[in-house]
């Protein structure tokens, strides 16, 4: 317990995380210039999630935080997941039971 609360993260850890964030920003700009087809969005999101994880763990000290803090962070991610996934499962499934599927109110455009 004591170690966790008295933890002072060395400044070089912050500088290393900063460098990783800058490199990942450069990679996301580079990746947007590549044609991965429908995977461009997935690549951009994967890089953004990696960057956010670095910020949360090190800049926001969650790596050294109490179990309650870690549970709070996980709760935020899970509830955000509910929000997006359940909303999209509604939109994406509209018209599946329609007698005329071509008139489905929500359809994905071709990429």
């Amino acid at each position: 317990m004591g170690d966790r609360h008295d933890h002072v993260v060395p400044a070089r850890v912050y500088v290393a995380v900063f460098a990783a964030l800058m490199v990942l920003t450069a990679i996301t700009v580079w990746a947007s210039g590549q044609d991965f087809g429908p995977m461009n969005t997935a690549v951009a999101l994967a890089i953004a999630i990696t960057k956010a994880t670095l910020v949360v763990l090190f800049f926001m000290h969650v790596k050294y935080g109490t179990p309650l803090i870690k549970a709070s962070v996980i709760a935020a991610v899970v509830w955000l997941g509910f929000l997006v996934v359940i909303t999209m499962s509604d939109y994406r499934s509209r018209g599946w039971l329609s007698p005329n599927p071509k008139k489905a109110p929500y359809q994905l455009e071709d990429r």
Partner: protein
Amino acid sequence: MSSATEHAHPALAHHFENLEVQKESATLGMWAFLVQEVLFFGAFFTVYTVHRNLYYKVFEASSHHLDWKLGAFNTAVLICSSLTMALAVHAAAEGKRGAIVAWLLATVVLGSAFLGVKVVEYHQKWVDQLIPGLRWGSIEHVGHELHLSGSDVDHAQLYFSLYFGMTGLHALHMIIGIPIILWLARRAWRGDFGPVYSTPVELTGLYWHFVDIVWIFLFPLLYLVGHH
């Protein structure tokens, strides 16, 4: 149990046994706030996801109208400001009064630079008549600007509404954060913070890093849609 010096600390509220317990409570409270902030911004991201799937080509064309170089520059500025904020928290934990003030002021300068670039970008949207509800050009004008035609031009209002809604809410968070950091710098200069007590610096740091994370997602989702 708490020591006599901790009881004497002016920052210790009477209902907490010691500063460590007080800090743990305050940190959890800040995280509870940040969790609801995730869902607050999450509503915007959900609306974005729904309409980006509906009008992908419109979103792509509209996104190409943004200047990704300004977006990338601002991303770098904000990451720098997160580093300076983290170093301010670090300086507080080490009790270096001058360094806390210097890193906090550096954070304010970088945050202000970010907002300055945002003003330039918003002004360009005003000139290009791409502000839904306030200054939205004719169907011919917007169609020409975005290389779109027909009903796609109207749907572009969705993209720009989300652009202003999301970047505006993000900028509002920074406009709130900057005076708080200035207030911290004044308190740090007075000598309020050190290894024993620096909770306000740490919690403001959490807030500032959260704002950085929001931008980390806004940059690719608004500026880098589709193949560039």
